[in-house]
């Protein structure tokens, strides 16, 4: 059978990754906490069974699961295992999409040949290979389209697999799956569909295609085709061009000190310029988004003098935006710096006021590549000593490059 697409998804990946290096955590309810220690960002099935959900504050989680053990997240380690999974899958498929840190789409046509057995046995053998060689349990779905393949792996969890070719089995799973679970059907699209009585994937598959296109545009129509088993969303081996690149996050509390705020700004900017360099982008606009007290949003942006990825050009522009907070001293709890109007380096209009990365910054980048991230950094970040004393803060999930999704 040709044109088969597979979807491989690690089971509770962060928790499983911790169990790879600390085997005594097996069978223990574990919760992985975010960088502030406040919320559960991932949990084992044992903890999930006790009612703990993702993004639950730790104090609620502790009341649900007092015997649970909480662990600080370590994206550097998770990336090691993620890339190991990617390399292993490439041994069995010539076309692999690195969709997210723990999810992969792949051309499944070669599985039978690779394992020298029929497709169901080959899928089971692939699953066993991952457990043996990476130590992470995975679930796998194989079908004729991406969405059906993902439906298969989602329905098979934990540690299961589905080959979705039989129309009766497909119809059964479509009936069981709420339409909101589909990738590409967000909250608002779900409401629109629900208003028409479309609640399950089977309802969506049975709906009129043109009506779905009118309601959810061409993206909704693509989902409709995929649910019929027609592959219209290809496997992407390279990441599509970004619309924007952002770096930032929580400041770990309300910050009012201008020096500390400037430290965060420069830290996020150093991360942003590093990302622009890694992707090969230059930006024409820079935007600063903040969350102020009472959770109110604040956003300003500025047009740059030509496209650039130079820290020397972006820093004064972003600092000028930061000074516009009115009144000065308003507490800030979240900060994001966003590079917009992206061009790939070499495909941009040159400016008379062009500012390229200085010798000092180029040297900084090279030193950090050899010694380690943030080994050399701006003196403005000295206002954040605790942040830099803990290596767990050096790597966020967005620092894992090559994924086609977030």
């Amino acid at each position, binding site marked *: 059978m040709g044109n088969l697409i597979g979807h491989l998804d690690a089971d509770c990946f962060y928790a499983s990754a911790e169990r790879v290096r600390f085997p005594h955590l097996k*069978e*223990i309810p574990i919760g992985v906490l975010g960088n502030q220690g406040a919320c559960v960002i991932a949990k084992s099935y044992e903890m999930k069974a006790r009612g703990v959900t993702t993004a639950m504050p*730790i104090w609620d989680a502790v009341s649900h699961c007092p015997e649970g*053990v*909480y662990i600080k997240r370590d994206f550097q380690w998770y990336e090691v295992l993620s890339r190991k999974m990617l390399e292993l899958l490439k041994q069995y498929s010539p076309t692999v999409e690195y969709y997210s840190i723990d999810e992969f789409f792949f051309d499944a046509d070669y599985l039978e040949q690779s394992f020298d057995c029929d497709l169901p046995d080959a899928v089971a053998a692939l699953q066993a290979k991952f457990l043996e060689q990476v130590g992470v349990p995975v679930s796998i779905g194989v079908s004729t389209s991406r969405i059906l393949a993902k439906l298969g792996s989602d329905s098979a969890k934990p540690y299961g697999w589905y080959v979705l070719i039989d129309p009766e089995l497909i119809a059964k799973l479509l009936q069981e799956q709420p339409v909101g679970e589909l990738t590409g059907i967000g909250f608002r699209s779900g409401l629109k569909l629900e208003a028409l009585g479309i609640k399950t994937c089977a309802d969506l598959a049975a709906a009129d295609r043109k009506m779905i296109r009118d309601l959810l545009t061409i993206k909704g129509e693509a989902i409709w085709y995929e649910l019929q088993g027609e592959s219209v969303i290809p496997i992407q081996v390279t990441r599509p061009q970004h619309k924007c690149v952002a770096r930032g996050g929580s400041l770990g*509390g309300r910050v009012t000190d201008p020096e500390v705020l400037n430290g965060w700004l420069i830290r996020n900017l150093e991360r942003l310029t590093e990302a622009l360099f890694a992707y090969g982008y230059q930006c024409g606009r820079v935007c600063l988004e903040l969350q102020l007290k009472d959770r109110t949003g604040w956003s300003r942006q500025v047009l740059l003098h030509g496209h650039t990825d130079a820290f020397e050009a972006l820093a004064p522009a972003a600092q000028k935006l930061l000074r516009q907070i009115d009144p000065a001293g308003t507490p800030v709890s979240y900060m994001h710096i966003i590079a917009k109007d992206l061009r790939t380096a070499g495909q941009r209009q040159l400016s008379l006021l062009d500012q390229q990365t200085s010798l000092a910054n180029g040297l900084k980048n090279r030193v950090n590549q050899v010694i380690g991230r943030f080994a050399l950094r701006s003196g403005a970040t000295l206002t954040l000593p*605790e942040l830099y004393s803990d290596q767990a803060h050096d790597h966020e999930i967005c620092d894992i490059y090559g994924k086609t999704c977030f």
Partner: protein
Amino acid sequence: MVGLSLLRSEIPETLIAQRHLQNRLTRRSDQAVEEIRFLWRVRHSLLPVWYQNELSFFEWGNKDRSNRLPCGSHLMQEELKNGCWRNCQRVEVPANFGLANHVWFHVIGGFQGILIHDHSGGAHVYLLTQPASHYYEVMTRSKRMPLFIGQGI
């Protein structure tokens, strides 16, 4: 911090029997590995300690007010640095899990403690503490945290 736990497999069976640690055995789920818990709130609170290259068990801190040693389970690292304590010895307290304010957290290399002898020669071990990191404070709502060995938290 009010408790810690060590995997049963890390304690020799002879020591478990000798120190009557069987009643401290527990599991977090039916299939999970067995742990031996050391809690401050129990009457005879003990701490595991690496002492003279051997795993030993000593009284955790001091609960006896007639004793000249400070009452409590912890000593502040700042006091040690200021020279408030003499004739004490730094020791390693092995642990796989720590407990603070009802939150169990994963421990990799154990904690730093100090061993002090009372007037009758009895050994007491206190955990050393330092101001909590932002992460630890948010996680446990504690202003102080133990000194971790080989682990940033």
